[in-house]
Every structure is written in structure tokens, then in C-alpha cells.
């Protein structure tokens, strides 16, 4: 009798929990990475199959510090832990491997107090020496690559690291770096075992390192398959995850599928559990997934929005600020977002995506206004002529856009929009290998780029000639005076510990970027994920990567 009762009790509780969780799940986790779409008590075991888009063709790498490929940052997030974690909802920095930290008043010294009992998967304990080895190793990689490595922008101004005592480490900067605390939460500064830094940077790229995460890297076959195994005894997950202990899943397989339609097809047919596209799902694909009882999760990727950067060197049409201003009016970003990605897709509102901290929308300056564009162009001396295009001194108003077609579909819609204002957009298809040379030679007027990081400083990686991935793009994007202004605003925001000053510097920056025609926002980058109905506990990190701690399958 008692047994029966208790059983009924359990069933009732389970039902209540299911209902409650079900309700929160129905609320959808759009825009909020933290909510877990749970549907009952987690079940342990199983292999989760995730399909990414293709591996990086030019730089196959799984090393935390060197990787920029966002799919691989997802892999790293689950293999290696960071000193801190960032709340996807508020952007706040929370403890993880570091229990607490202090920042010196001048903003140059960060002291981290490490958590006890954490070990890397090769058995070595996480201590101050291990953290020092990581930062020393990172500095070595920066030196080795001449500053071109992707992690470099995360540790700008890093001078040296000191071991205070076995569980306390001090990171010392030569100039204040206010974005470093956020940087310490990213995958790029994830902490790996000190022995890993005895390997070369190439070997680490191929996965020869040990992290302290809830999974261990079982194998990495570039562009084929990456497999993770659950790490037994894991017990130091960040408080932002519901499950801070061992992972529910036994193993995870990441495959690389080039075709979007095939990836979605795989999900719908049940061959995979999660489809993780780079370019947002089409409306049709989203409908297809929902129709097959799957769930579509989405969250804008924080950082630099997909945008065009102009070539303002003398002699190029975009050297004229009026033409750049007219260009903003010629773009119809709302129609673009609606047509290419669906009616409910967010419209880009500035140089950054909406989930970036300190985001300040510039919607009014980006409004579509063909007549206004025409007026500006008329004033600049470009008169309408043959074929509806504008001419000045017999020269057609032509903008060259070199593209690899891989990123960002629908450029032809932009082309037709510009045509309405009399601007010819010439899309030149080049290979990924040719693009850097095209940029270097300045044979372009617009080129697109983006970068993911939950900090506006991410834009330095594109626009600051000292740190930029493509120096040519950064130098050509604005006049020397404007570049100096941009650099100053970045420095103002970086070299302070005052949040109000950071906010005002970043607000000024976002406004300046549009006023001076430096960034032409194209579309908000939304990370979509298609889940099969058997996947529960899905969550985005603050950088819109996938966190596997809470996921279970049934």
C-alpha cells in the first residue's frame, strides 16, 4: 500500500515537473541562451549527433587560443573551461574556474582566485602555475604569428602573469584592458593543461591538448568527424548551467555537412539530432523542421554584424562621403531581412548585433529612402543616365563587391536595391584564396566581414589597422582622421574601469561608424539550431555557441 502510494506520488511529481518545464519550454528560448528546453527528468546516456557546416578550409584548428571558426568554438566550449562565465541574459561575468577575482583600481592587474579540486583530463590539477602557462603560451603564439593569431585581440596589452600562491594568479597589463574580464570567459582564453603548451601550436590545432571540460576530445578528423567523450568525475560546471556535474550524454559526434538542405534533411529524417547551420535557416527549412516535430532555437550572435566595409581610397567612388550616405539610403535592410530570412527575422540596426553588450541601435540612420539617396547623388554630381544608372563625367557609378559566395546569400537582392538608386553593384566571384590579394590591391569598393565576440571590442579585429585580420580592409575603410577617432574611442573604452565611460565611448563609436560611412550593416547574424524532438536541455552560451552540459536525449 505504501509502496503503491509513493509510486503514485512520484508519478504526480514527475507530471507536475514535466508540465512546469514544458510551459517554460513553450515560452521559447529565443534571444535567451540560458533557458533549458527541458521536458522532464534528464536521462543519462546516448550519443548526440550534431551536423555543422564544413570545417575551415584555410585553417583547420581546434586550439582554443587560435581558433576563430565559430563551430569549433562550440566544440572547445565543451572540452575546456574558462576562468569565468558570461550570463547570456545579462552579459554579467560569473565565477567558473575562478571563484572570485579583483581588478586593481588602475585596471592593469587582474587577480584570480582559483577553485579547488579541478583537474585537467590528463590528471594534472588546475593551479596558478597552469593558468600562467596558458597566458605565457598565448603570448608565445602571438609572438610566433606576429600578432596575426585570433586570440591576440583578447589579451591586448598583456604584460606578464604572476603566480601569487598555488590558487591565486595575477595577470598584469601594461595598459588597462577593460574587456579582459569578458575575454577570460571566452573559449579563446579557455584554460588547457600546462603540458599542452609543450606541443607546437600546429599540434594543438589538431586537438593535442587536454582541457578540464565536461567532455574530452576523442578524435578530430578535419572536415570529417569530431567526437567527444563524457568526462567521468566532472564536478565544476559554471553556475549558469543547471547541471554542474557529469554530462548526461555519453558521447557527442560533430559531422560536417556542406549543403544546408542536406543538413536539414538529415535532421528531419532522424539521421542527426541537431542541425547547426552557419547561415540562418531559410523560412522553408524552419517550417520543415517544425512540421517534423522538431524545434528551432535561435539567438543573434553577439559581436560584429554581417556588414560591408567600404574602400574610401582616393579615386574610388566611395571616397565621397555623400555617396556613402546615399548608399545607406539605397539599402533596404528590412526587405532584405524579410525576403531572405523570413518575416520575423530581426533587422540589423548598426555595426553590432543586438546581443552585443553596449549595443546602441542606429535604426534612424539606416532607413531606406531611395528619393533621399537620389537627391544626395544628384548633389554629388552623379546624374541619371543610360539604363537607369548614374554617371559623372561619362563614368558609371559602379561599386565592385568581391565575394566568395559562401557567406551571406541574397547579395543579388542588394544589387537590385542599389540599382533603383542608380548605383551598379558588380559582384565579382573570387576564390577564398584570392580575396586577400584583391583587398590588398584595393580592387574593390565594398567587402563583407563579421566577427563573433560578446564585446564591442571585437570590431578592432576588423577596423583597427594594428590588430585587423586584413590590414588593407582596415586602412581603406576610413580616412586616416576617422581611423584615429575610431582608435581613440576603442582606447577610451578599453583603458577604463568605469562602465559609464565604456558605455559612452562605445555609443559614440557606433554613431560615428555610421555618420562617417565606415560600416554598412547588411544583416543581423542569428545562430539557428534545429533540434529533433528527442533533444532536451538545449542552451546557448553568451556567445551563442552550444553548451552541452544540460542536454539529454530521450
Amino acid at each position: 500500500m505504501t509502496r503503491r502510494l509513493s509510486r503514485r506520488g512520484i508519478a504526480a511529481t514527475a507530471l507536475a515537473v514535466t508540465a512546469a518545464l514544458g510551459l517554460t519550454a513553450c515560452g521559447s528560448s529565443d534571444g535567451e541562451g540560458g533557458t533549458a528546453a527541458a521536458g522532464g527528468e534528464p536521462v543519462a546516456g546516448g550519443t548526440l549527433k550534431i551536423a555543422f557546416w564544413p570545417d575551415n578550409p584555410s585553417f583547420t584548428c581546434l586550439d582554443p587560443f587560435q581558433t576563430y571558426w565559430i563551430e569549433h568554438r562550440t566544440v572547445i566550449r565543451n572540452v575546456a573551461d574558462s576562468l569565468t562565465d558570461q550570463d547570456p541574459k545579462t552579459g554579467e561575468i560569473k565565477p567558473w574556474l575562478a571563484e572570485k577575482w579583483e581588478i586593481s583600481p588602475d585596471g592593469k592587474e587582474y587577480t584570480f582566485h582559483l577553485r579547488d579540486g579541478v583537474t585537467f583530463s590528463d590528471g594534472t590539477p588546475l593551479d596558478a602555475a597552469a593558468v600562467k602557462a596558458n597566458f605565457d603560451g598565448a603570448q608565445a603564439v602571438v609572438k610566433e604569428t606576429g600578432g596575426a593569431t585570433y586570440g591576440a585581440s583578447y589579451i591586448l596589452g598583456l604584460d606578464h602573469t604572476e603566480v601569487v600562491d598555488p590558487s591565486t594568479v595575477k595577470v598584469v597589463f601594461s595598459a588597462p584592458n577593460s574587456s579582459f574580464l569578458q575575454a577570460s570567459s571566452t573559449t579563446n582564453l579557455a584554460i588547457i593543461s600546462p603540458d599542452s603548451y609543450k606541443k607546437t601550436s600546429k599540434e594543438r590545432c589538431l586537438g593535442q591538448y587536454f582541457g578540464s571540460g565536461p567532455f574530452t576530445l576523442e578524435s578530430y578528423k578535419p572536415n570529417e568527424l569530431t567526437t567527444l567523450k563524457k568526462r567521468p568525475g566532472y564536478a565544476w560546471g559554471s553556475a549558469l548551467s543547471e547541471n554542474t556535474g557529469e554530462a548526461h550524454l555519453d558521447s557527442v559526434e560533430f559531422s560536417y555537412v556542406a549543403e544546408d538542405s542536406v543538413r536539414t534533411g538529415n535532421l528531419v529524417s532522424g539521421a542527426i539530432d541537431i542541425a547547426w547551420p552557419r547561415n540562418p535557416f531559410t523560412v522553408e527549412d524552419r517550417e520543415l523542421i517544425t512540421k517534423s516535430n522538431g524545434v528551432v532555437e535561435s539567438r543573434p550572435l553577439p559581436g560584429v554584424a554581417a556588414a560591408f566595409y567600404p574602400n574610401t581610397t582616393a579615386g574610388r567612388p566611395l571616397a565621397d562621403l555623400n555617396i556613402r550616405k546615399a548608399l545607406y539610403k539605397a539599402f533596404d535592410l528590412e526587405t532584405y531581412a524579410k525576403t531572405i530570412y523570413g518575416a520575423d527575422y530581426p533587422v540589423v540596426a548598426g555595426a553590432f548585433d543586438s546581443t552585443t553588450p553596449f549595443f546602441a541601435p542606429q535604426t534612424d540612420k539606416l532607413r531606406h529612402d531611395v528619393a533621399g539617396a537620389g537627391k544626395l547623388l544628384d548633389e554629388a554630381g552623379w546624374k541619371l543616365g543610360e539604363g537607369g544608372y548614374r554617371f559623372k563625367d561619362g563614368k558609371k557609378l559602379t561599386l565592385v563587391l568581391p565575394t566568395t559566395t559562401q557567406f551571406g546569400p541574397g547579395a543579388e537582392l542588394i544589387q537590385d536595391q542599389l540599382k533603383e538608386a542608380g548605383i551598379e553593384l558588380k559582384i565579382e566571384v573570387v576564390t577564398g584564396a584570392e580575396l586577400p590579394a584583391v583587398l590588398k590591391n584595393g580592387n574593390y569598393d565594398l567587402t563583407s566581414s563579421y566577427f563573433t565576440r560578446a564585446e564591442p571590442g571585437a570590431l578592432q579585429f576588423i577596423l583597427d589597422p594594428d590588430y585587423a585580420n586584413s590590414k588593407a580592409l582596415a586602412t581603406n575603410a576610413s580616412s586616416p582622421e576617422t581611423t584615429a577617432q575610431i582608435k581613440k574611442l576603442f582606447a577610451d573604452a578599453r583603458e577604463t574601469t568605469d562602465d559609464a565611460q565604456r558605455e559612452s565611448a562605445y555609443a559614440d563609436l557606433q554613431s560615428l561608424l555610421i555618420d562617417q560611412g565606415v560600416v554598412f550593416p547588411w544583416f543581423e547574424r542569428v545562430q539557428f539550431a534545429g533540434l529533433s524532438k528527442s533533444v532536451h536541455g538545449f542552451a546557448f552560451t553568451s556567445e551563442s555557441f552550444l553548451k552541452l552540459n544540460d542536454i539529454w536525449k530521450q
Partner: protein
Amino acid sequence: MALSVSTEPKNLQPTSAGPVDVGPPAAGPAAATSAGPGGLGTTGGTEAPGTSGLAAISAIPGEELVDDTEPGGRRAGLVASLRTLGSKPGFVLAVLFIVFVAVTAFAPGLFTSRGPFDTAPADRLVSPSFDHLFGTDEIGRDLWTRMLYGSALTIKAALIALAIAVIVGLALGVLSGFCGGFVDALLMRVVDVLLAIPALLMALAIVTALGFGTVPVAIAVGVGIMPGFARITRAEVLRIKTLPYVEASRAGGASWLRVLLTHVLPNSWGPVAVLAVLDTGVAIIYIASLSFLGFGAAPPAAEWGTLISAGRNYLVTAPWVSLLPGLFVAATVLSLNHISKTLQERGR
């Protein structure tokens, strides 16, 4: 070839060539007696006035005989062939379709009032209807219109490719077959190497080196399919070189160049012509493949392959975007294959 042509008139001329060749009663019996190269000596001379006045002016009657019987027989054969072919509905359909495609290639505006680059976000992915025969793509462009304008690019690319393949292939083949010896060995080893590389792979390599665009793709495909032409031409030249009428003309004092131009070349390009028609289909497929892979014309211009490729993401949800252009390409290539196969059968 020469043999087959000269045997054909034997049974066809009494019925068809009679009315065409006005007058000479000798035509019938002449053709009947001129069965095989052996009968070329004098009987052909009597036929000459009936078919062409040129032979009478000819300085070397014996040599011109062959040529005269050939065109005469061919023309007669052609009329008969056309009649037989005209009674084959599949063939007629294929020809009509190819003619349609050819017309669209040179005047795409005849069949549509829309522009190929006009976007209409509101009409996104509309399924095929009377208004939009092929439906619309993901930014609302009319696919039928884009298909027609795509013909212009694709067919022109195919023609350029074919011209390169035929001219270069024929030249190499004739040179190789006619010169023999070291030149033959050298050229054919080069062709061997080219044949060892799959044509599409070679085209890919070439287009990567040349850069993107319709003309580079056409050149790449032309070079890719050229070896086949060289090989076939050489085989034909080798065969014809040994035929008695070539020997006869040599014996008659004709120079090698003359023999080459007036005897070997005209008689060796029959199979080459069939191969050309067949390879037009192959060229179209290769060009479509390359533009599918993104090597084709710069956007917004679209070749057939680009159109198929653009619909890839909508294969399940809006299949017409890829499928209809794909079917159009398939129909074109099948028609060309059917035409060339039929011609080949007639040639036997």
C-alpha cells in the same frame, strides 16, 4: 565512309535522285554500275554532267570523279534521309526542341516580357503557374525568364567550346594521321595524356587558372573535350589515306596538300560531325557543371548550372527552383543525343 556512301545511292537513286537530277538518263545506270571504288574509272565520267558542271572543266577527270559521285550521292541520300527521319516523331521533336533552344539563345526576349534580374520580394518562391511558367526563385525573379537568358550564356559557351574542340581536334588529328611517324607518335602521346585526365577534372583545373566567367568556362570545356576529336579524326584520316582513290590521286600527280584538303579532310569529318553533335550535349553538361560549382558568369547573370545550384537549398521545400532548369538541361542534352544517335544510325 566513302564506301558506304557509294553503296547507298545504288538503291536510292532510282526513286529519289531521278526527279532531282533533271534529264540525264544515264544517271540511274551510272550509279548502279559505280558500285564500289573499282567502277570509278570511266562510268563516273558519264554521270558527271548530271550532277555538277564543274567536273567537265576539271583537268584531271579521274581524280574529280570520286568527289562528284560523292556529293551527288550525298544530296540524293540527304533528301531520302530527311524523309525517313521526318517520319520519326522522336527525332522531329528533338530537332524542334533544339531549334527552340537555339532561338532562345539568340533572342531570349522573344518569349518573355520580364527582365532576368528584376527582383520582387513579394513574389518569393511562387510555384509554377501560367503567370510564372517555371515559378520564381528566393528573391522573386521569374525563373522562366532567367532560364531563357541563361540559354544565351550556356549555348554560346557550348558553341565556343565546340568550336575550340573541333578546330583544334581536327587540326591535330589530321596532322597526326597524315604525317604519321614521329609527329603522330608525339601528338598522340600528348592526346593520350589528355585523355587519361577526366575531361571535367581538366576543365576544372583550367578554369581555376583562367578565372571565373562564361568565356573561361567555355575555353576550359573546349580544351577538355578536344582530345576525343583529335583521336577520332586521326583514325578516320588513317583509314582514308589507304583508300584507292587517294592512291589514285597521288598517282595522278596531286600534291599531298591537295590530297589532304580535297580528299582526306572532306571524307573524314563525317564521324567528327556526329561526335560534334554528341559532344554538344556533353559540353552543355560540363558547362552546367562548372557553373553549378560557381565558376560561371558573375551574378546576377545566370547560366543553367547556376540556376540549378541556386535552388539547392530549396530542393525539399520549393523543388521547382532546381528541378525545372535541371529538366530543361536534361531535355536539351537528351535531344542532342537522340539527334546524333539517329544520324549515326543513318550513317551506317
